[in-house]
């Protein structure tokens, strides 16, 4: 028993180690990028903050999606819509009742109520979708959820709901120009009057700014880092929650549904109800992720919730491997670092280290120069539109992943549906294994090696 415990502990540690290793590697890469670009300490700190922020939000979303797809096999490509419901509900609940001229009125509730309201709203929308839609085939569910996320975005984008009133209460979504997010509570920690544009710092803020200012890290970067660390804590909470869910009896049913729904239902499990519950839980987490991400922006606009966001999350999950929580976190970090931020940094480095001259304004001008065997205009044009080419890269990565490694980097560790690994039985029966584990050192380490080999 104790050996099994210590083994699982070591495995757990190795997962954390893996995540830390990946993040550490990314940090090293971006510090090198920053040094090549000649950024000062503050610039590098800000770069790493952005990297960590994006890695954390994509990890949160990938974890939530993994619950639906990796565990229960529900193909939801409406992630952006559920994020929008969460973030918008939160903003509409917490917006001031009397916003002043040109402002958007809300219900003026405290932030915690807004966050819970946002999660509940996302879960309810998920539940309403799931009730009829989960009977459908996976590809139909995909189309329905994508259409739903577009409907949600169009509703928030419309002028009809820009401002409206329910039961005498004025409310509004702000239409295409968006709704202001609430003031980040992290700012309360640092500033006595967080709403003003040039706020005076609190005593704690003064001390922190003074300390980090000595390293050349400005106040705003410190505040951003603090919020980013809050997100990292949330990644930990999501991870913990989803691991617990996955290992609970509820999670075992989910995995059974993923493997074979008919078997699960013939064993007396109401698979439809399980699917609805897990869909709602996943949507609530997506809503929370939307609140933590887009909700922390100064302005929440419908353009933040285009379907492309869903595909980003999907790529993050696919990179890490669906079915694995550790994979989701690793995938989120790798996506944010290598695929999302990486190309722009490489572009900036190439741009700063070679003199390419002015980029031609159109593609045909760049191609025309190829006639005189001059490649530089084409390269300059490509660097100019590196953000466009990044999407091409994402598409190609997705195709190659599906062709070569559809299970992702860690997807081969997909947790089995059974509580015990059924394939291990064939090696030896339990009593001799226990005897061996108590016995010679070499045998015990062999057995441990076998188990790790199977699990990893």
């Amino acid at each position, binding site marked *: 028993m104790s050996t099994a415990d210590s083994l699982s502990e070591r495995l757990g540690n190795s997962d954390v180690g893996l995540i830390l290793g990946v993040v550490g590697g990314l940090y090293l890469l971006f510090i090198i990028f920053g040094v090549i670009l000649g950024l000062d300490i503050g610039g590098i700190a800000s770069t790493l903050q952005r990297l960590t922020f994006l890695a954390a939000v994509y990890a949160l979303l990938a974890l939530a999606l993994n619950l639906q797809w990796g565990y229960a096999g529900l*193909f939801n490509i409406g992630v952006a819509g559920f994020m929008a419901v969460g973030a918008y509900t939160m903003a509409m609940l917490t917006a001031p009742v009397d916003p002043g001229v040109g402002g958007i009125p809300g219900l003026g509730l405290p932030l915690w109520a807004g966050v819970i309201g946002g999660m509940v709203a996302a879960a309810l929308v998920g539940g309403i979708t799931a009730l*009829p*839609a989960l*009977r*459908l*085939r*996976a*590809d*139909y569910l*995909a*189309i*329905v959820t*994508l*259409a*739903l996320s*577009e*409907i949600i975005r*169009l*509703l928030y*984008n*419309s*002028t*009809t709901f820009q401002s409206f009133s329910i039961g005498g209460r004025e409310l509004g979504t702000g239409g295409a120009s968006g709704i202001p997010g609430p003031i980040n509570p992290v700012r309360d920690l640092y500033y006595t009057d967080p709403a003003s544009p040039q706020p005076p710092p609190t005593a704690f803020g003064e001390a922190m700014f003074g300390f980090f200012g000595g390293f050349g890290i400005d106040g705003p970067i410190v505040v951003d880092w603090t919020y980013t660390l809050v997100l990292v804590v949330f990644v930990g909470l999501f991870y913990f929650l989803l691991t617990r869910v996955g290992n609970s009896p509820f999670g075992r049913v989910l995995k059974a549904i993923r493997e074979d729904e008919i078997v699960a239902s013939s064993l007396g499990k109401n698979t439809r109800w399980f699917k609805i519950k897990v869909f709602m839980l996943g949507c609530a987490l997506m809503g929370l992720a939307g609140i933590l991400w887009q909700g922390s922006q100064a302005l929440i606009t419908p353009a933040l919730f285009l379907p492309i966001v869903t*595909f980003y999350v*999907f790529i993050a999950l*696919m990179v890490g491997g669906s079915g694995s929580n550790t994979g989701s976190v690793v995938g989120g970090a790798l996506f944010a670092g290598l695929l999302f931020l990486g190309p722009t940094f490489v572009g900036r480095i190439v741009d700063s280290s070679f003199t390419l001259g002015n980029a031609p*304004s*159109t*593609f*045909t*001008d760049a*191609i*025309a120069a190829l006639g005189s065997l001059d490649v530089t205009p084409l390269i300059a044009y*490509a660097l100019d*539109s590196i953000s*466009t*080419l*990044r*999407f*091409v890269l*994402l*598409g*190609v*990565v*997705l*195709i190659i*992943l*599906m*062709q070569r490694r*559809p299970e992702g980097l860690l997807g081969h560790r997909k947790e089995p549906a059974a509580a015990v690994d059924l394939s291990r039985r064939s090696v030896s029966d339990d009593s001799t294994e226990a005897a061996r584990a108590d016995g010679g050192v070499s045998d015990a380490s062999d057995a441990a090696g076998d188990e790790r080999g199977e699990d990893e």
Partner: protein
Amino acid sequence: MGISETYDRGRNVVVDQPLGVIAGVVGVLLIVDLATKLMDGSLSVLSLAIFLKQGLILGLVLGLAGVGLSMTYSILGFANFAHGDYISAGAFAGWAITYVIGGFGTLPIGDLFLVGVSGEADAGSVGVSVVSAPVAILVGFVVAVGFAALLTLGIDRLVYKPMRDQEGISLLIASIGVALALRYLLAFVFGTSSSGLTSGNIPSVTVPGIGISLNAHELTLAIGAVALMVGVHLLLQYTKLGTAMRAMADNRDLARVTGIPTERVVRATWVIGGGLAGAAGYLIVLWRGTIAFDFGWVLLLLIFAAVILGGIGSVYGAMFGGLTIGVASTVSLIWVPSEFSTAAAFVVMIFVLVLKPSGLFSGVTTA
């Protein structure tokens, strides 16, 4: 006795299909409301006719694009999310050639090639129409069809062929990757702004009686779309290839055992589906007069709606579904603001999916 039986059946319908009953009631209410609106004059017959005309034209192109999507869906067994971008790619290729021919000599070829999305050309300086430059339009149309067909073949060879035996979901995800790569390659070459293409000066005819007018581009689109659909019908119904396709859609393994060269049929499917997508893209741009790198992607969900409504695999279903979705998205303007017309079409699709996932023409595959 008759009454109690009817009552029982009615109660069963209500219990089994609550959403269906709601949809039916809403439908009846809308029709009643439409009739009252027409009676009391708050909605003129002319504006209803204009909604219907716009809807039918949109429906024709949706159906045309949907036929290709439906064929690949039933024969290859996956929802191709890149289909919308085949439409854009075909349209861009075709219009680039149309501009190069139509504006030859007025501007450098490089600028003409970019059809005004970037570069110097614009609707004012080049501005082609069916009447002013019929040859350029015809050549452009052929190029759009040919380019889209070749493109789909190439993508099939690179992406989908190595994955032939994988599940539909894996192929679906790969097609999302294809869609992303293709769409942003177009953006890379042509730019991301939207631009007007056709000259506004086109002749139109007025239909006597209702007073509704049809311009030359709308007529071209309608004739082209109907002709292509009839062509697809003849191909599927009366050629050996059509029989082989229907056999494959029915049962792939059985088709292979019977000696049908399945790979060749798959290639033929892509050629036809891609060609129709290119044709639809070219005609949509001719009709709307504007082009943007993501217009096919924006249309994709509507096309899916059309295909699903008609029943996947059914070519006539796709045509019928296209017309229904097109009309639904324009006639909905009577009740909802124009910003919700797309959302209304999606709602129709979700209802169809939930109520009758096999589509209205279910059971009739590729025929």
